[in-house]
């Protein structure tokens, strides 16, 4: 086991995306469950998949999905800063994500920039700052690579703990404010007139979006976070069902893709985040085709 983990760890670092090479040996799915790296990956993946899918449905319906991409790229600056200062990069990334989510929504509210250009601006600032920090810090770091493309198979217990705690915060928020968020998403002005504290809830929602993005960086990587957030919702929306059914399908699609992606990537020795997103795309395409054909 130690040997296997060692291999995964090393290749995970080099490949950046958890390229593993040990499934040539005959390890069954059941045996895999005994490996701590696998347990960590599945738990972390489920937490991220659950949170991303649920929050993603609201973001897609609010037509704000690209905020995720912008903020995730900005978080790259945060990761670089953390590596430079020797702080846990997830903590600095969280800080930067929060700043940039509020930056985008502030610019949007003040009419300083149309939302997509505000996002582009944030993305540019964060990513370029990240690049400068890296070059000052002394060039390319393999560690940085694992944040760009995710390294779910090599997350540590402490990473996992952070992911689970953050995941709990997100799910608690969504559970409590689910109905209010729905009302705001459907008709913000109407929700305000009903006496729902729209501004407060949206501020909390922004915070939760930043947390979700940070949580997913280790799992799926900065580049593909947006896929984890958008594709399950897009797929579930094809079902043309009620909101309750849409939420449940969104979450199930998110969870299933993560689990299938992790296992398939181990058995077929390919980049995990790539396989997770690919699984999602397969489900999306199948669902779309099926429902087009049925109608």
């Amino acid at each position, binding site marked *: 086991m130690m040997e296997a983990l060692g291999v995964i760890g090393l290749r995970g670092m080099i490949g950046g995306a958890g390229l593993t090479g040990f499934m040539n040996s005959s390890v069954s799915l059941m045996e895999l469950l005994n490996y701590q790296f696998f347990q960590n990956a599945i738990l972390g993946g489920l937490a991220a998949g659950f949170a991303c899918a649920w929050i993603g449905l609201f973001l897609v319906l609010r037509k704000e999905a690209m905020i995720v991409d912008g903020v995730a790229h900005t978080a790259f600056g945060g990761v670089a800063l953390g590596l430079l200062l020797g702080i846990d990069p997830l903590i600095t990334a969280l800080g930067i994500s929060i700043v940039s989510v509020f930056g985008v929504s502030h610019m949007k509210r003040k009419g300083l920039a149309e939302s997509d250009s505000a996002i582009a601006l944030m993305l540019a600032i964060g990513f370029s700052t990240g690049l400068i920090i890296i070059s000052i810090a002394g060039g390319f770091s393999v560690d940085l690579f694992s944040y760009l493309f995710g390294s779910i198979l090599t997350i540590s217990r402490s990473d996992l703990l952070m992911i689970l705690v953050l995941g709990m915060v997100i799910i608690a928020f969504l559970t409590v*404010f689910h109905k209010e968020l729905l009302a705001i998403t*459907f008709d913000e002005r109407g929700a305000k007139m009903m*006496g729902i504290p729209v501004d407060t809830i949206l501020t909390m929602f922004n915070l939760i979006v930043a947390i979700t993005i940070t949580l997913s960086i280790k799992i799926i990587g900065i580049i593909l976070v947006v896929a984890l957030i958008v594709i399950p919702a897009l797929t579930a929306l094809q079902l043309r069902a*009620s909101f309750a059914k849409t939420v449940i399908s969104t979450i199930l699609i998110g969870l299933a893709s993560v689990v299938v992606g992790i296992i398939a990537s181990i058995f077929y020795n390919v980049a995990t985040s790539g396989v997770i997103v690919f699984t999602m795309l397969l489900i999306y395409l199948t669902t779309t085709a099926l429902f087009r054909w049925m109608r």
Partner: protein
Amino acid sequence: MEKSGIDSGVREIMSKDMVIEVKNLSVNRSGSLVIKDANFEVLKGDYVGIVGPNGGGKTTLLLALLGQIPKASGTIRLFGKSIESFNEWERVAFVPQDATNFDANFPLSVRELVSLGRLGRKRIGKRLSKIDWDEVDSALEFMGLSEVAERRIGELSGGQKQRMFVAMALVRDPDVIIMDEPVAGIDAATQEKFYQKMSDLNQKRGITIMMVSHDLSAVFCRMSKVICVNKEVNVAEIRPDVDLEGVLRKAYGDHFHFVFHRHECKGEFKA
């Protein structure tokens, strides 16, 4: 001292029945005057029709009453409280003119949408209870939407959509319902039923109702008060001894003829 004490006592009694009190209200939109010096009152149990030509300022007036757009001058009091400090919005339900222009692909069933009406200041973060859902189902039934309750909101007809938003307003259990052209684009028979439902709500449940309508006969047959809006705002009780045509001419112009025959009204009268 003595006198002002009596005055405030009288005021107190009167304000109990006062739903809306407007004094010298003017409202601008994009810099031009749209509502000029309006004065009127809406009392508890009133059934008010708001009429006037397109662009006359009906929607503007309602939005000002709801605090959605700023006023240029004057005072608005809701349930006796100045609009600036009014915070009992759960008592007021509003169905906007463009309510039915929602994203047809939004994933909501009719029942789910109507249930959102149960949210509000007092219920933040609380789950909906059995009582809430019972309210939802009875509102759906009252508006004749039980059969389509599980359908997606985008799959309703225009008239069904309108009724859905009224059902959503109803579940809020408001003291006043304000509707901006709730029957626009609805067939005559369904309109008739709609006005009948609103009369029921008004008379049996004592809910104050205000609605914008272009159907003058319906207003005069069923409602208790009419507000004519064309920059100037004129208000009249709908009674046999009131010259309603004269009031309408102030809004629609001197060439306007509307001869109202009470005996042409089907069903009951309000006044």
